[in-house]
């Protein structure tokens, strides 16, 4: 796991998530903007997965429990997909809020993943 990339993920997932929550509460249905923000969060997670698989080969090993790390990562990858499908099926303002909630949940999980990988023992 590459630390600066993790911060980049957070820098996109947190504002993106908040934006979707605000847009949704303001009554907007899912749009290219809210769906795009969610898709970007998902894309970065896929890159993170590739990085996590490749990093140990470059000598960058996880300091914590690798099983826990991958449970978080796989769950995080599933979230925006489910929220995105929900938004496609159910075109209401609450779907936009749910897109935001999924991105914010991903942010929390990425933060925990960073702790597991980079901060010993947590």
């Amino acid at each position, binding site marked *: 796991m590459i630390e600066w990339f993790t911060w980049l993920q957070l820098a996109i997932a947190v504002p993106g998530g908040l934006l979707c929550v605000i847009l949704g509460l303001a009554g907007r249905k899912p749009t290219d903007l809210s769906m795009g923000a969610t898709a970007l969060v998902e894309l970065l997670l896929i890159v993170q997965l590739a990085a996590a698989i490749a990093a140990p080969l470059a000598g960058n090993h996880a300091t914590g*429990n690798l*099983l*826990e790390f991958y*449970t*978080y990562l796989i*769950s995080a990858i*599933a*979230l925006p997909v*489910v*929220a995105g499908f*929900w938004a496609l099926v*159910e075109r*209401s303002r*609450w*779907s936009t*809020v*749910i897109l935001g*909630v*999924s991105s914010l*949940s991903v942010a*929390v999980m990425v933060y925990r993943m960073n702790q597991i990988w980079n901060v010993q023992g947590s």
Partner: protein
Amino acid sequence: MTKSETTESAPSRRVSGIGRLLIAVYGVLALAATGRSFVQIASEFVDAPLAYSLSALAAVVYIVATVALIKRSPRWYRIAWITISFELLGVLVVGTLSLVDPALFQHKTVWSVFGRGYGFVPLVLPLLGMWWLRRHPVSVVAGRALPEGRA
């Protein structure tokens, strides 16, 4: 049943408005609890069988509660009340015990310290769930249209 009755009871069959958000958050929490208990049981179950069994139980209850909120029928409505009450009880009892006697819950569960590890969502969510269930009773509307025996 007349046509107007059908259209009247139809909305109660579908989860509407903010209820969808509640279901989504429940889904996320169910996922989080399941993931955590999976890791705990897979890697270090013998360390704390009690705490980890509790994690697994909590995870199952969250999954059932999520399903119960999606399925709008009198029976699932009752299951939703039972599971959500159980969650509230769990977070209050385990939360209190984890503060009063930390030795009992050295290993984290979803409910330790009132769900602090999850931003206190496990404490707030059952209350929101109960509020929502009270606002959207199924048994009253759907129960009349579909008596218990036929439902």
